[in-house]
């Protein structure tokens, strides 16, 4: 019985995982995704403020230069956030999955000229290698490992918020909370931003949904739930009517997209989380 099970397991070496994670973080930090660039160019066409247009032009120019020079798009190369979907028919050989990923993060930040941005919360002393990485691990069916790397900057993370609204607050309450969060954030999170909105679940799942929503290609609407697709479009219009604009210096393009995800919640609750992403929306993925 045991023999039969092990025969169906696919082997993936810890060494390969480490190298793949290293490459993901270096790539994500130095090359802005096509989806982001397309959204920025569309924003440039829409922007009416001369200063706003100049900011967007510089952002696009920076992405092209960073990629050529192999330099990080932003000096804040972020917390090393990872989403991992490990197939239950995979066996990691030569080490364990978590350590292999952590090693990859260390190598990326050491060899890729990426800034180490983690510190002890109280002494504020830098941990020196940008670990511990923040790993969200799922066991899924299949015999592959999917790894998504998401370097997440501190400025936009600081402007993110969660709230346990009352069921009575409803859709209007969610809208108010999102707009208030974006308005309070102002220039701080480096607009134009992408807004990840998580609704439902518990306190922590609302936050996780909001972060996962940011992994979608920028501007791709929610395809599972029409109510959410409609909410995304309406919120984007309202956010862009706030006038914060590129770099907060005024204009029409405050957000490039709103991505919402939802799951059922307790009859007593309406958890809502807003995870703000700066315009350097970096993510890269690999399937091993």
């Amino acid at each position, binding site marked *: 019985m045991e023999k039969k099970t092990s025969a169906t397991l696919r082997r993936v070496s810890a060494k390969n995982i480490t190298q793949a994670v290293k490459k993901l973080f270096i790539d994500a930090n130095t090359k802005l995704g096509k989806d982001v660039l397309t959204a920025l160019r569309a924003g440039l066409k829409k922007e009416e403020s001369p*200063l706003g247009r100049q900011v967007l032009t510089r952002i696009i120019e920076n992405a092209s*230069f960073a990629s050529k020079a192999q330099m990080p798009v932003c000096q804040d190369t972020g917390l090393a956030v990872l989403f991992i979907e490990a197939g239950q028919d995979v066996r990691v050989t030569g080490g364990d999955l978590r350590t292999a990923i952590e090693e990859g993060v260390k190598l990326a930040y050491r060899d890729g*000229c990426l800034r180490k941005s983690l510190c002890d919360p109280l002494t504020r002393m830098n941990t020196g290698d940008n670990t511990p990485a923040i790993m969200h691990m799922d066991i899924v069916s299949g015999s592959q490992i999917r790894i998504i790397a998401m370097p997440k900057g501190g400025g936009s993370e600081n402007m993110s918020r969660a709230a346990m609204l009352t069921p009575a607050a409803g859709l209007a309450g969610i809208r108010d909370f999102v707009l208030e969060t974006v308005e309070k954030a102002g220039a701080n999170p480096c607009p134009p931003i992408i807004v990840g909105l998580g609704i439902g679940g518990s306190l922590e799942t609302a936050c996780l949904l909001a972060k996962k929503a940011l992994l979608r290609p920028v501007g791709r609407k929610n395809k599972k739930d029409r109510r959410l697709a409609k909410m995304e479009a309406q919120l984007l219009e309202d956010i862009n009517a*706030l006038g914060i604009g590129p770099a907060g210096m005024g204009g029409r393009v405050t957000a490039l997209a709103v991505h919402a995800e939802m799951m059922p919640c307790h009859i007593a609750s309406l958890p809502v989380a807003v995870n703000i992403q700066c315009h350097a929306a970096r993510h890269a993925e690999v399937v091993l």
Partner: protein
Amino acid sequence: MNEQAVKEKENLIRIETPLTDDVCASLGAGDMVLLSGEIYTARDAAHRRMYDALTSGHALPFDLKRATIFYAAPAPTPVGRVIGSIGPTTSYRMDAFTPALIEHGLKGMIGKGNRSPEVIETIKQYKAVYFGAIGGIAALTARTVKRMELVAYRELGPEAIRKLTVADMPLVVVNDTRGGDLYARAQREWRILA
């Protein structure tokens, strides 16, 4: 160069550090400047240390008189370059320490995002200036840095204080000596949400 680009170039004001009262007083919110000269990087942890030094009567790692601070911590320097990617961090986290630094001579601050009413008031009172740099264009900004030198707090890693010599660093005046505020003005001009 198209007409728009030529016009924008003409609107740029060239200034040099150390900043003087006159230069600061001549700048208004929304002015686009090209800054050259020596500036210092300092952000969260360095501000805490400088503030503690000031309030306990200890010497500061550099002379604050007419100095300009860039709220920034660069990425490591790639081989063959002067500095790694560098850009502004959010300024409000320095607000608790800033009035004391301005009272001791600090003239220029470079960052992003709103300042507290206390900081804005101190900027007016002491003829200082707060510049906004664009966040997220750190590879481009690195090109304006011609020299980098470690000054203090090496153990803070990226947060250590560094002296940078910059040439034509593009900035926008956010808070000026007359109480002008670019972000507040942007809201008045561009907000259309009821």
